């Protein structure tokens, strides 16, 4: 089952990126991960949020890259930053210090309470697939005032039970996160290729609350490994505007050109 609407003149990635970018506001302090979150945060900066503060865990604060970084520590991030600080500072003073509005995370798997796995598929001691690991995510998930998760929906990625909890969402729901001492409010949105899921009051279980144009919510339910609840009044997310699409495509084109530019071997 594919969520790709054959007729749509944009890709699911573009729809997700634009939707995520719209959630970021001008002046927001955003802790950014590589990939789609980085594209969304920079698209927001280029459009409606010119004063957004982008922080990457490599220590770059207030960075304004011309092209998207391939790695979390590309030179472009340092060269365009307001400040570059040591990595232990980023985690201790800036993240744990409570200065981050939004943390933006991806993962391999998510469960109904927004807990994330980026560590292993299968048992930890004998993994079927060893994933890169948690990196900065456990403390981003704990400390950012709120977290947005970006992940394509499928029965393999939206699972009833995680093989490993790398980063905490609402734990077992029903207020468990609040009792855990985590300072941040936790995941407030999961942006997928069908629409947006949000935690429900009380249970803290994620439900589909908004869908893209042309999406049948029954398909979103089928692409979920737990019985996904669908809001009675499902919001329809406006398609990408020409301005949004042009800015995003120009950003990706600049990035592509920069990353394929041959580099002379040193010496």
């Amino acid at each position, binding site marked *: 089952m594919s969520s790709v609407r054959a007729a749509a003149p944009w890709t699911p990635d573009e729809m997700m990126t634009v939707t995520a970018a719209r959630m970021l506001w001008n002046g927001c302090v955003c802790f950014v991960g590589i990939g789609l979150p980085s594209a969304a945060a920079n698209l927001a900066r280029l459009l409606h949020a010119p004063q957004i503060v982008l922080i990457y865990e490599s220590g770059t604060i207030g960075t304004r890259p011309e092209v998207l970084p391939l*790695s979390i520590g590309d030179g472009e991030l*340092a060269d365009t930053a307001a400040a570059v600080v040591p990595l232990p500072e980023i*985690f201790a003073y800036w*993240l744990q210090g409570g200065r981050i509005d939004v943390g933006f995370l991806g993962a391999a798997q998510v469960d109904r309470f927004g807990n994330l796995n980026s560590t292993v598929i299968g048992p930890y001691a004998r993994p079927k697939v060893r994933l890169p*690991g948690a990196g900065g995510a456990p403390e981003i998930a704990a400390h950012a005032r709120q977290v947005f998760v970006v992940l394509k929906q499928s029965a393999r990625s939206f699972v009833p039970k995680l093989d490993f909890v790398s980063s905490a969402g609402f*734990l077992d729901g029903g207020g468990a996160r609040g009792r855990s001492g985590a300072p941040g409010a936790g995941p407030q949105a999961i942006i997928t290729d069908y629409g947006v899921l949000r935690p429900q009051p009380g249970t803290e279980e994620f439900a589909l609350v908004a869908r893209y144009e042309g999406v049948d919510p029954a398909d979103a339910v089928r692409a979920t490994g737990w019985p996904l609840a669908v809001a009675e009044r499902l919001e329809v997310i406006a398609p990408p505007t020409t301005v949004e699409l042009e800015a995003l495509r120009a950003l990706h084109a600049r990035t592509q050109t920069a990353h394929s530019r041959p580099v002379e*071997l040193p010496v």
Partner: protein
Amino acid sequence: MPIVTLREAIEAHVRDGDAVALEGFTHLIPFAAGQEIIRQGRRRLHLIRMTPDLVYDQMVGAGCARALTFSWGGNPGVGSAHRIREAIEAGWPQPLEVCEHSHAGMAAGYVAGAARLPFGVLRGYLGTDLARHNPAIRSVECPYTGERLATVPALNPDVTILHAQKADRSGNVLISGILGAQKEAGLAARKLLVTVEEVVEDLAAPMNAVVLPHWVITAVACVPGGAWPSYARGYYPRDNAFYIAWDEISRDRQRFTDWIARYVHGTPDFAGFLARLRADGGLA
């Protein structure tokens, strides 16, 4: 503090079985030093690094390591570190014991190590399975507030190896740009080796710049290009194309082994390695 060749520095200061940290977060990764350790056939190392990427993929695949302490392991922006994955998933070329943290936890461990405290403390690992699988992650009750806080043991490598832009003739080292945990990992170590792009008369370091003074450094070696394919700000950019090419080179045991044989064991030093790559058109 002598300025020596990289070969001499590794011969004299890295022993089989050592706990060795090569730090540098995407920037200034000491690739030349990692390859010299492979060339000299070091074994049973406990490798420590926040982000084991290509440099440890090479060392693990070449059989240098028995254990890995880390917080994120992959090929940044590209995908898996295939050699590390195969060591963990299939025990090839030998099993790899893992000690896994988050970035914040590892950073706290280096900070404690540099301060010669027994452990680092953080409000971390909340609700995760990391503490369940890593017995080194524990907790302590704050004596002032009663809050339960996570602890990680200090990281004190036998040897930390860094790459930096410049040293002066006395061996003082200047680092600029993205730092990662270089300073903390350097000061946490029993021995600190540094490779640099160039040796200059005067560092001309701005006030508050990151300078490691010669008397905390065990040896400095001048290795131009020594962070390639990562980058050295002010000298050369990151070779993203090589990171992408590494995905193919490292995916297959035999292709990887042939690559190490030709480019690392088959060359006398890092200058020879770069010369052979250049002769082969850059990407091998």
